[in-house]
């Protein structure tokens, strides 16, 4: 009897254990499913928040450019920043995103026009829509950089034509090379958030635009010396820089497109350190060179640091970030002076901040990357890859930009007439005045 009792006790225990094992393993499976779903949700929310931050950078660019230029052109600046985003959003949806991230060859993507594809080639867990909106605001950033360099003298319809082409084709092709699995990606180029993809493309197109346009009336004297055409509102420019700096916390950390990737914290730190070092160095250099701490150069210095760190933000340590930002802050001042000597009129310093510091930041990864950087015992191969990327993107963006602006000049006309430029583009292009109440309003009769 006792043995039967014991065996039935055994049976009970075994049954209980079986039930428990089945029960808990089921729960464990459920928990794994739940954790995976949560991870995707966190990644999606993070990507969207970052996209919204980067979208706000559009406002930052608008304020910087309007502040650094004269009051008579403020409304035109706003329209350019508004419309390159609006028209850019549409063409990037239609073709740009497909060229950039569709599957295709090493040069360009060829599937997924109008987002009609699963984009399985990207291997994303987050919805493609989240990735798409994040990439849309990036494309708009590249396009709007050009607006500042071409400020105060560009025909509005000519600008619109340019902005469609850069967002539909010039930018997405570079994006495909580096981020979309193209030939530079295969070489192992490191451009985490787009010092080259976004900023250099915009900066080199801006250089082409400024060259084809020629300088503003009254900017250079016959003896080659430059005149100051002071911007109308330094507060506005400074607010714009703060907005851009803020937006950059989406631009760089958001480029993980994964909130579960905890490197977002260290990326935020390298981003901020570089911006701070850029501002400090630009202030010091301007103070020494000009006798006073120059406001607009210091503002440019913060942006230079941000652009400089964008490529290596996930690949370099904190001290390297400070060094990269500091060098960018120095470079930007000498670069602004260099282009002034060549009589290439860039009212806001877009070519220096985005083109030159973007190229510098990309090359700096070859020196400072914790893995593969020359200074960290990684040899020279990464550096060479970075340089190849910088040079080919320059040739592509500047070359195509130059041809494009020449073509627009021939077909539509790139520059406004002399009378319109003197009167101001607010009136000539938009029939309005951004500050009507700053003068006696003769039209206001009872």
């Amino acid at each position: 009897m006792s043995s039967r009792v014991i065996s039935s006790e055994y049976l009970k225990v075994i049954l209980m254990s079986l039930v428990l094992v089945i029960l808990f393993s089921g729960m464990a499976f459920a928990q794994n499913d739940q954790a995976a779903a949560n991870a995707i949700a966190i990644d999606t929310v993070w990507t969207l928040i970052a996209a919204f931050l980067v979208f706000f950078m559009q406002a930052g660019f608008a304020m910087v450019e309007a502040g650094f230029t004269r009051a008579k052109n403020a409304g035109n600046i706003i329209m350019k920043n508004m419309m390159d985003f609006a028209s850019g959003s549409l063409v990037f949806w239609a073709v740009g995103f497909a060229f950039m991230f569709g599957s295709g060859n090493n040069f360009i993507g060829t599937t997924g026009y109008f987002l009609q594809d699963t984009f399985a080639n990207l291997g994303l867990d987050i919805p493609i829509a989240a990735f798409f909106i994040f990439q849309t605001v990036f494309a708009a950033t590249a396009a709007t950089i050009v607006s500042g360099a071409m400020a105060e003298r560009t025909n509005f319809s000519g600008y619109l034509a340019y902005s469609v082409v850069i967002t539909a084709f010039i930018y997405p092709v570079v994006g495909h090379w580096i981020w979309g699995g193209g030939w530079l990606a295969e070489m192992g180029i490191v451009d985490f958030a787009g010092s080259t993809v976004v900023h250099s493309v915009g900066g080199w197109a801006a250089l082409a635009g400024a060259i084809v346009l020629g300088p503003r009336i009254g900017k250079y004297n016959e003896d080659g010396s430059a005149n100051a055409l002071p911007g109308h509102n330094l507060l506005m420019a400074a607010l714009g820089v703060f907005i851009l700096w803020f937006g950059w916390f989406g631009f760089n950390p958001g480029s993980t497109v994964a909130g579960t990737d905890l490197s977002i914290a260290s990326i935020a730190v390298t981003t901020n350190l570089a911006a701070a070092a850029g501002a400090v160095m630009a202030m010091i250099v301007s103070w020494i060179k000009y006798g006073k701490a120059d406001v607009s150069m210091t503002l440019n210095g913060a942006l230079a640091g941000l652009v400089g760190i964008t490529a290596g933000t996930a690949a370099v340590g904190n001290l390297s970030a400070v060094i990269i930002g500091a060098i960018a802050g120095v470079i930007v001042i000498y670069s602004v002076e260099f282009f002034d000597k060549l009589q290439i009129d860039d009212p806001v310093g877009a070519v220096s901040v985005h083109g030159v510091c973007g190229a510098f930041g990309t090359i700096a990864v070859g020196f400072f990357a914790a893995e593969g950087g020359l200074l960290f015992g990684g040899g020279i191969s990464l550096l060479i890859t970075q340089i190849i990327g910088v040079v080919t993107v320059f040739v592509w963006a500047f070359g195509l930009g130059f041809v494009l602006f020449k073509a627009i000049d021939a077909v539509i006309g790139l520059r406004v007439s002399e009378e319109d430029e003197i009167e101001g583009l607010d009136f000539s292009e938009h029939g309005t005045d951004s500050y009507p109440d700053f003068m006696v309003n003769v039209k206001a009769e009872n």
Partner: protein
Amino acid sequence: MKRIEAIIRPEKTDKLIDRLEAIGISGLNITEIKGYGSQKGHSETYRGVTYRIRLRKKIKVEIIVEYTDVDKIVEAIKEAVQTGEVGDGKIFVSDIENVIRIRTGEEGAVAL
């Protein structure tokens, strides 16, 4: 009647108005102006380019008064705005033929 025009330092405007109210002046006009005299301009830099500001900001105060009040007002202006440094400004006194108050049509000194 006389017109007294005083070109003064902008930061002295409030002090001058206080002083003129204290001696019973009933109205005045102020214009923001730019100009230069012996004070000349100064240099500023913007993005590394030095440029000359040729004209300085000044305030022009205009008062129309009876000729008997002129000396008293000129004294008051000098007291209120003089610093003794170059750039204090100037006072101009000239004749006024007539004054008409638009609301009532009154003319001459009663319209002041």
